[in-house]
């Protein structure tokens, strides 16, 4: 079985209509999966469900051979220990400096020594180009800077699987390249990633496979080149032509 196996995942928000319908996806270790699809198709919901912020109504998630039971505290805890998510809206803790945002979970949750963690946190912030901003609060940082702190915070967790939700959407064009370089480096290091993005050129470059979502269902999956150059379904055809024209 694949490293991460999602099977028949069905999710709704508080008893309303399903926003994910029977979603299945296999992710091998070290693989980078691009999740694409129109706004509202359920891309964020997949990532949020994986980290247990929504409870699936049906379906299974199997991580490294172990089925995740989202109803069980212990199982959920074990799963969250291996995922890290970067949210579309960064979600940095507003009451903490950049450094503290990055260092808090490793010290508090993973119980690692504060000195080592902070040293690592500084290195991570330097890596995303924010060495001088370690003591800044989120409201003193631009959207792009906050997004990069959020990436550093996710990396500090040393996750097995990194979930990235439109991390370049809020960045200034000149910063997009920088952040994408970071992701490229992670891919080279063999990090398993699920990337939601509208940067089609980037997805084509880093993703080994792409899943196209529409209205809560996976319509088509395949290697990026095939998906973009020879889409099978009319909906993907329409989506790619629309997004590549922009």
């Amino acid at each position, binding site marked *: 079985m694949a490293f991460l196996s999602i099977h028949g995942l069905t999710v709704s928000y508080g008893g309303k209509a399903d926003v994910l319908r029977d979603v299945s996806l296999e992710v091998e270790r070290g693989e980078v999966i691009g999740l694409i699809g129109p706004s509202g198709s359920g891309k964020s919901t997949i990532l*949020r469900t994986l*980290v*247990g*912020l929504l409870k699936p109504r049906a379906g299974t998630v199997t991580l490294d051979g172990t089925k995740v039971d989202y109803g069980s505290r212990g199982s959920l*805890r074990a799963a*969250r*220990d291996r*995922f*890290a*998510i970067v*949210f579309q*809206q960064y*979600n*940095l*803790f*507003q*009451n903490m400096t950049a450094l503290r945002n990055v260092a*808090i*979970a490793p010290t*508090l*949750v993973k119980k690692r020594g504060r000195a080592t963690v902070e040293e690592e946190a500084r290195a991570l912030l330097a890596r995303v180009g924010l060495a001088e901003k370690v003591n800044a*609060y*989120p*409201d003193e940082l631009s959207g792009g800077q906050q997004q990069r702190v959020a990436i550093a915070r996710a990396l500090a*967790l040393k996750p097995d699987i990194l979930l990235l939700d439109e991390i370049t959407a809020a960045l200034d064009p000149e910063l997009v390249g920088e952040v994408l370089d970071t992701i490229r480096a992670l891919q080279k290091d063999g990090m398993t990633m699920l990337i939601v993005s509208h940067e089609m050129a980037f997805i084509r470059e880093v993703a080994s496979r792409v899943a196209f979502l529409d209205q809560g269902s996976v319509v088509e999956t395949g290697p990026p080149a095939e998906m973009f150059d020879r889409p099978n379904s009319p909906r993907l055809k329409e989506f790619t032509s629309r997004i590549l024209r922009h």
Partner: protein
Amino acid sequence: MWDQILEDAPRFFGPWNLLFLGEALVNTLLLSYIGAALGFMIGFGLAIGRHPRLYGILPVRLAATAYVEVFRRIPFLVKLMCVFFAFQLSGTQATLFTVALVTVVLSAAAFAAEIARAGIEAVPAPQWDAAEAMNFSRWRVLTRVVAPQSWRVVLPPLFGYAVGFIKSTSIASQIGVMELTYAAKILNTRGFSALLCFGTILVLYFLICWPTKRIGERLEARLGRRAKA
């Protein structure tokens, strides 16, 4: 009139009266501060127990909500009577002071629970999402992320109510609790001028309320600065 007051003053501020007023002042302080402190703690507990993303299980939530909604709406004097008769019915020997203290605690808890709820609600859901996704326990979500961002919203009304409770304790004089207002009434019936009696406790109330308000403002400035939002 002023002549009368000046003539009365030395006798009014005699040792016996000062002792009497001192005891009343201590009782008012104890009722206000112990009552508010205990009440706020219970109120925060209720708010935490009520919150679906913290510890809220349904029966606790319903009970807490009912308590908060009812106790915020009953006038202090009515609550005071209820507690008084509750003690009588249960056959428990309780001093009038205890009756008043319990009433202050019950009121303060209901108001603090509501204020704390609003404070928790003021922290946007994405903050919770991030903490939960990183495996923060509920207690840590509360203490490290939510509470630090709530103080800004919680402290101003909380200290507003604290000042209110100090004033409410005067209602305890209605059942004969020896606090400031009751002391003033007694001294007044002993023949001291009303202006002197009530003027004195007026000053004393002010001396309690004003620093309370100031402490609130200082805390607000300090915690508000740390918890940027």
